[in-house]
């Protein structure tokens, strides 16, 4: 069995491969095309299609704008459609800043893209061409959504679930900054906020219906949702009914990334950050925290990580699991270090060091 880890950074795309997930071969920055400017593109979203192993990379050039490249040989060679893969339609007076997220559904070829400005797009051809999901774009709440420091984007897309009761191909949960969590149960025709109990420290109302700055949402194998908020960490089995704080036991309730175990209910990883005004790790230590009881308690998992002061945090898509039966977990930091751990070993191994700041990672068995 081999494993592929795709790493998006502020200055280009990298890939790492391994047979045992302990020893990695890293290459990059990858040349996405012949233009020669791939090295200076920010890679804000990567995705690996579970059906075909096609790899998608959402890139933004500061000069020449955004696009989506795809690879059908695990990242060795890349292609880009002639027409823009993601673009607002002619009747919408807006232009794409960048893709933030790719999320594949159970239907082969179907993939969602969360994007900036706050928008959701859907592809049925494996990511070559996306169409705007109109009902979310035209949502009456849009006028109240505004950009956080990272930009105003739909950055999290969870197809197939709105609660823990079961999966449904017409269900999708998204999260946005700012705006919060929204859900559809009818294939995207209508969307409702699902933020009860999630706090908004930057609004007059402590727990508004919507408008929160939810940084990342993950879902466990039992359908439980976990949310890392702009201050606050929450869990819910039915977000439409409300969320419960699970921040007790963490060194900080601020952070960006959060990853749920793909096979074990109640287990998740969190990557604390000091506060909204200080984006550094608590105590200047690179120290992810893990829960095995659905957030009732947390403990640090830092074996193998640097013991000296560390200042790079993990951004919202900078952590992921490969979803394997014995899952691997991965994260990259703004200091350009990437680490992996397998199963319950509790010990991290370094995949790469000194890369440009890591924006996103995704991994899969291949």
């Amino acid at each position: 069995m081999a494993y592929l880890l795709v790493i998006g950074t502020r200055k280009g795309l990298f890939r790492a491969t391994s047979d045992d997930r302990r020893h990695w071969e890293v290459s990059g920055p990858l040349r996405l095309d012949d233009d020669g400017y791939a090295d200076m593109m920010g890679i804000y979203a990567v995705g690996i299609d579970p059906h075909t192993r096609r790899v998608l990379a959402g890139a933004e050039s500061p000069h020449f704008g955004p696009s989506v490249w795809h690879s059908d040989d695990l990242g060795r060679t890349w292609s880009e459609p002639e027409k823009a893969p993601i673009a607002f339609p002619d009747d919408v007076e807006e232009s794409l800043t960048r893709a933030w997220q790719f999320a594949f559904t159970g239907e082969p070829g179907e993939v969602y893209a969360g994007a900036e400005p706050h928008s959701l797009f859907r592809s049925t051809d494996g990511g070559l061409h996306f169409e705007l999901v109109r009902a979310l774009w035209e949502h009456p709440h849009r006028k109240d959504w505004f950009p956080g420091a990272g930009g105003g984007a739909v950055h999290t897309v969870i197809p197939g679930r709105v609660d823990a009761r079961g999966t449904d191909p017409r269900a999708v949960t998204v999260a946005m900054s700012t705006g919060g969590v929204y859900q559809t149960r009818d294939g995207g025709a209508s969307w409702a906020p699902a933020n009860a109990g999630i706090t908004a420290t930057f609004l007059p109302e402590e727990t508004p219906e919507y408008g929160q700055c939810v940084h990342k949402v993950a879902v466990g194998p039992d359908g439980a949702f976990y949310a890392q908020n702009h201050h606050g960490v929450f869990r819910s089995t039915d977000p439409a009914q409300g969320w419960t704080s699970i921040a007790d036991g963490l060194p900080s309730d601020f952070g960006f990334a959060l990853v749920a175990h793909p096979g074990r209910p109640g287990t998740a990883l969190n990557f604390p950050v000091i506060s909204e005004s200080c984006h550094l790790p608590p105590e200047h230590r690179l120290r992810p925290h893990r829960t095995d009881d659905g957030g009732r308690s947390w403990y640090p998992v830092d074996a193998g990580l640097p013991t000296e002061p560390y200042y790079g945090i993990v951004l919202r898509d900078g952590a992921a699991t490969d979803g394997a039966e014995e899952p691997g977990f991965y994260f990259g930091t703004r200091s350009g270090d990437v680490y992996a751990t397998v199963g319950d070993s509790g010990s991290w191994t370094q995949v790469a060091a000194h890369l440009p700041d890591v924006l996103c990672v995704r991994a899969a068995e291949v």
Partner: protein
Amino acid sequence: MSVTVILPQVLQADAGGAKHIAVERPAGGEPLRAVLDELARRHPRLDRRVRDEQGALRRFVNVFVGDEECRALAGLDTPVPDGSEVRILPSVAGG
């Protein structure tokens, strides 16, 4: 009756490797927008490097008509005389 569009090296792959593209035009004095529209018809990917889906020039792309950057003239409405050179260049940004 044509103008010559000159591409930077970094965009030539999006035009089949060409550095110079002759754009034939039915009449002189058309605006820069019409030149770029013709370029877009032939090379859609090149166009989206230069303009967003609203047709606006990307912030850090400069387009010179002769020796003047178009924003200092009339932007995309700048007339392009016959025989002109239209030069597309990335601005001093990024890295």
